[in-house]
């Protein structure tokens, strides 16, 4: 499986920074998943759970507020705010 670099950054530091296989979350036009080699794109994400499939096939997830996901050549970043409690 190909991997790519993913960063989830919030105003209080990075929630996640590392290599992953895929990320799935709720985008502006519905559920979406991004894998390595995706064409460059930027989208608004809706509040919800963002699931990451890590290099070692384990899954991890974060609850996030509205944010913006941008995908560049094999590098993706999500800027958001952690779910307010």
């Amino acid at each position, binding site marked *: 499986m190909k991997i790519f670099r993913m*960063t989830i*950054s*919030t*105003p*209080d*530091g*990075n929630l996640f920074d590392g290599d992953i296989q895929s990320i799935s979350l709720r*985008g*502006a*036009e519905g559920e979406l998943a991004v894998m390595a080699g995706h*064409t*460059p*794109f*930027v*989208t*608004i994400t809706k509040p919800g759970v963002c699931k990451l499939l890590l290099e070692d096939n384990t899954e991890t997830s974060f609850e996030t507020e*509205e944010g*913006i996901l*941008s995908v560049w050549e094999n590098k993706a*970043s999500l*800027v958001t*705010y952690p779910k307010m409690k």
Partner: protein
Amino acid sequence: MATDTKRLKSRIRSIDSTLHLAKAMELVASTKIRGASELMNKNRQYTLTLEDMIKGLAGVPECKKSVYMQKDNGGKVCTVVIAGDRGLAGGYNMNVLKLADSTMAEEFIPVGKRACEKYQRDILKVEDFDYKEAYKLAKELCGCFKSGKYGEIQIVSTNYVSMMTQNPEVQQILPVEMSEDKKNVSIIYEPDEITVLDTLIEKYVAAKLLVAARESFVCELVARRLAMDSASKNASEMIDALTLEYNRARQGAITQEITEIIAGSGI
């Protein structure tokens, strides 16, 4: 003579308490610096990511029509002034406030107790300025910019370069600078460029405000530490000089007493 030594003694005592105060403030400031600069660094990363995105978007032709990129919409110039909460930090507050005055802005939004006092607004402490506050302010600013009330939004804050250098500076945040970056044209934007820009802009302004506030806070602490360091140095020097004077006076009094006793005994 006796009154002289008494006066000197009480002066030494009062300077000594000033010395203690200065040292305590210096220690408090240095402890806070670590935490504050950690927060600042985390925030810088976040802001850089957002800045990259904005730059990418600013190069897209569709976005050039966005209200956030229009110059000279006839609105007022609004300046967000970020100063400290407390004094005793050398020229820190004065430098920022002086720079703010020189911007010729028509409206000021102060952050930090000292700035709020100057512009007579409700007090908003820079130490407690978090993302929630920043976002609230950013939303308001973006709303005013969109409606044409403000034509330009700037931040006046102190830029942290290193432990030794901090410069007060003016940053323009809105309208967004045009960028001639053409390499981002092939990017797909969902749902469309303008919507992404509109959502991004509030976060970008909030991030800019927050990072400026946190940088300023670190600068305030650094300035205070420096000021308190020189204050305690001066106090020690003064105590040394006064102790010398005190001892001389005391010795003089003793010598005089002995002379009087000897003269009185009639030897």
